[in-house]
Each structure stands twice: as structure tokens, then as C-alpha cells.
């Protein structure tokens, strides 16, 4: 072991409190586990250091530095962290614009592309598609909105024919590996954006019940008393945890495509089929999250909220494909991401 590595190792062993040292050494991975168990961590640091040093398979100073890094990550201790801010990302936007236009025109000639950056860091792209024989159709453009710092892209009016071309161009222009469908759709762009990025008021599971005063709209007469007030509060809390509260983003539909076996009672012919019973269940509402919240808080849907419904907010999707999973003994179907 050369001098620098020895010093670094000595310093680390000295600085790390004895209670944490075992953990740090284990994370470091340079001391075999068996021998780590045999080490006595209650001895003095000097003795400990000699033991550790003899057990190490040391190759370079880099490993010691890594060890001190692990320790620092686990205990970012006494100093002060400062925040900084990257500004003027125009270079990135210019590159994106050039790349995207170039890629798309490579893939399909006769296409008209206009790119504009909005105030709120969103890049709007308008694409009119044409082909070898026709000029770009300006009456049915596709709109694409992308926030450069996020992996999200929102697409409007894109036909299946042009989908792979657009995806390809975007993937290459943003230097990502691939692009896939998020299974989330809605009428309002701001709503689905807020929904996806979870920038709406969420309720988090709390040990203490929310104070009743918050939810009473008007002071009620003390003579009126609700028997099930506690359960009502619990239901409301669970509903808000599952679907948000206050001004939630407006979703219009939630669709479940079932590809499960039929498991009802009574209908013999449907029960014994081998192939799955295909069905499509669609919930629609002017404001879906508020409706579902009301279903749960009013007691119409049972609590705890079934994961089929809470997946809407948990996964940020409103289109699900549900298949049977596992062997026949379980009668629950699991939600699968497509």
C-alpha cells in the first residue's frame, strides 16, 4: 500500500465514528464480509486501522477516495451547501431547433415545421405534413409541446402514419434513447401537464387526523351532531390522498381495457372459456378526479381505495390494460403497465 492510500485510509478510519464504521466498510466492499464480522469495533482506532489495513486488497488510491466519498454521502456533515442556478439555456434551444428540423426533413421531405419558445420554458412545434406528391397540409397540423428540461412531450393531432417519424426526430434531437406513449390524455394541456408533473395539491398520509375545522364550510349549530364524523373524516382523508384535493387538474376520462378471465357466478358458458373476456370500462366526467374523490368520501366506493383507481394519480395515467397475472389460485387481477 503506498503512502497516500495509507494516509487516506487512516484518516477515514479515524474520522468515522465506530458505530458507523462497520456499515461504511461494508458499503466499500473491499473487506471480505466474513472477516468484517470478525473485526472487533470496540478496540481503539489505531488497532482497528491496522486490522483493516491488513485485510484490504488495495489496488489504488482511488478506492480509498471512494470510501471517503461514501462516508461523506451518508453524513454530509458540518459545512454549508449553497444552491446555484443554470441560466440562459438558449444554446440548448438553438441546438434542439436545428437538430429537430434537420432530422424531420431527413425522414420526410415536404414537411413544414415552425418552432417557438414560450415564456414558461415550453417549446411549441407546429408541423404540417405532406408527402412526395402533396404539399404540407396546413389545415390539419400537429402540435407538439416540449419542456426542454423535462422528459415530457405533449402531442396533439398526430396520425399513426406520422407517429414513428415524429418520435424518431424528437428522440434524436433531444438525445434520448427512445420515446414511448404515457397513456395519459385529456382536453386541457395545462391540466395533463400539471397532472403528470404532480404540481397539484396532494394530501399525504398523516398520522394525525386533519382538524375538523378545515372542512366545515359554515359554523354548524351545536345541536346538530354527526354520528359517523370520524369515519367521514377518514374517508375524506383517503379520498384526498388518492385523488388530490382543492383545484385538481381536469381529466375527462379513465379507461380500463380488460383482458382477464370471466369470473362471475352463474353464467356457465362465460365461465369456462379459455380466452380472456375482453371488455372496456370507461369513466367519464367533467372533472374526473373530483368525481372519484366524491365517490370515496361519500362512501359509494369502498375504502381503502382500490389500486385500480388510485393508479390514476400514482402512475399519472388514464389508460390501463389489465391482464390476469399469476396462477389460478389468486382471484385478484393486477394492473399492468403496457
Amino acid at each position: 500500500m503506498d503512502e497516500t492510500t495509507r494516509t487516506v485510509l487512516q484518516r477515514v478510519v479515524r474520522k468515522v465514528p465506530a458505530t458507523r464504521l462497520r456499515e461504511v466498510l461494508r458499503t466499500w466492499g473491499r473487506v471480505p464480509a466474513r472477516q468484517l464480522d470478525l473485526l472487533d469495533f470496540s478496540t481503539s482506532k489505531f488497532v482497528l486501522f491496522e486490522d483493516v489495513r491488513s485485510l484490504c486488497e488495495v489496488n489504488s488510491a482511488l478506492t480509498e477516495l471512494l470510501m471517503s466519498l461514501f462516508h461523506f454521502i451518508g453524513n454530509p456533515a458540518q459545512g454549508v451547501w449553497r444552491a446555484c442556478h443554470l441560466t440562459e439555456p438558449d444554446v440548448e434551444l438553438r441546438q434542439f431547433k436545428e437538430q429537430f428540423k434537420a432530422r424531420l426533413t431527413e425522414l420526410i421531405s415536404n414537411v413544414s415545421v415552425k418552432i417557438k419558445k414560450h415564456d414558461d420554458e415550453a417549446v411549441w412545434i407546429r408541423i404540417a405534413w405532406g408527402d412526395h406528391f402533396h404539399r404540407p397540409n396546413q389545415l390539419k397540423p400537429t402540435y407538439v409541446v416540449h419542456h426542454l428540461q423535462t422528459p415530457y412531450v405533449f402531442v396533439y393531432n398526430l396520425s399513426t402514419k406520422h407517429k414513428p417519424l415524429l418520435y424518431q426526430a424528437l428522440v434524436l434531437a433531444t438525445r434520448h434513447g427512445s420515446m414511448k406513449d404515457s397513456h395519459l390524455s385529456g382536453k386541457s394541456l395545462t391540466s395533463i401537464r400539471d397532472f403528470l408533473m404532480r404540481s397539484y395539491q396532494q394530501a399525504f398520509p398523516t398520522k394525525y387526523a386533519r382538524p375538523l375545522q378545515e372542512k366545515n364550510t359554515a359554523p354548524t349549530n351545536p345541536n346538530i351532531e354527526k354520528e359517523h364524523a370520524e369515519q367521514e373524516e377518514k374517508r375524506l382523508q383517503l379520498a384526498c390522498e388518492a385523488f388530490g384535493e382543492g383545484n385538481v387538474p381536469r381529466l375527462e376520462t379513465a379507461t380500463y381495457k380488460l383482458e382477464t378471465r370471466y369470473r362471475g357466478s352463474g353464467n356457465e358458458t362465460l365461465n369456462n372459456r379459455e380466452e380472456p373476456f375482453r371488455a372496456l370500462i370507461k369513466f367519464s366526467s367533467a372533472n374526473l378526479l373530483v368525481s372519484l374523490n366524491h365517490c370515496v368520501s361519500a362512501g359509494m366506493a369502498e375504502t381503502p381505495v382500490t389500486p385500480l383507481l388510485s393508479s390514476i394519480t400514482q402512475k399519472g395515467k388514464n389508460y390501463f390494460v389489465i391482464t390476469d397475472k399469476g396462477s389460478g389460485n389468486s382471484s385478484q387481477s393486477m394492473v399492468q403497465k403496457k
Partner: protein
Amino acid sequence: CLTSTQLVENEEQFQKKLADVIVNAEKDVSVGVRLARRLPLPVENEETRPCIDLVVFIINLSFERSFQSVELSLKYVDPGFFLGKVCFLVTGARCWSVSSDRLQSVRKLATSLRCPLLYAEDQTVEGVNTAAARLLRVLKVTAGLTPWATGLSLSTLTRCTLSSDLEGDFD
């Protein structure tokens, strides 16, 4: 004077409106109104719960579940209450889309239990006020505030009966 009534309604809509009117109507009698969706009532409230003078089951004829919920809740009512301290309040009876079967079932139920069956209009302010006034009159009797009547005698006079003619008399 303190009286207390328990309103049980699965939809929890009409009971709120009724409660607001009831507690504000009476000046010389203090009326306590307790609201619940169904029975049984939670055990935790037993200590603080006053003696209930009248239990009102509110059934909305537009919802099948409303009636089913009341049927299930009835099991949890102490038999002593049925001697004049239980009454049924039905809303939505005028609605043309409601099948007459449902109303018939409710009437059968009320008749079998020998309880009065009241009809109420829950969509208008006058309807709510009228229903509240009727309930208050019944409540005053069952609470013993009317000297010449008891709950049992009143319910004997006003209890629901089934006539053979489907269009028959309304209580």
C-alpha cells in the same frame, strides 16, 4: 326542555337540510339532531349520546340503495323504539320515473312494523320546512312534551296501512 332525534339517511343530503331547519325552528324547546348514514351507530359515541326520542329513517325513492340501507339498519334498532319512536320519511314519491314497486315495498315495511310513513318534498324550501314542522310535531309527542298524547298512541293513529287498491289513501 331537551329532546333528541336521530335522522338516518344513506345519501346524507336531505338530513342536513332538515336538521338546519329543525334546530332553528323551536325557541322554547332545545332540539338535538343527530345525523347518520346507517346503523349501527359507532360505539365510541355511546357515552356522550343523549337519549333518543325519535328515530327517523329517510328513504329516497330514486335510489334502490336508499331502501336497502334502511332495511339493513333496522336490525340494529332496539325493539322498544318501535312502540312509537320510529318513523319513516319518504322523498321523491312524486317523481314519475320512480317505479311504484319501490314505494309499495316501503309501505309494506312500514305497515309490518306499525310505524307512521311520512312523505316529504325535498327540492324546495317550503317542502323542507313542512317536513321539519311535521317531524317536530311528532318529536314533541314522543318526547313527552304534549300532555294528552304519547308516541304509542300517536303512531297507532297515524301508522301506515296497506289498502288493496294500489292508488289507495296516502297517510
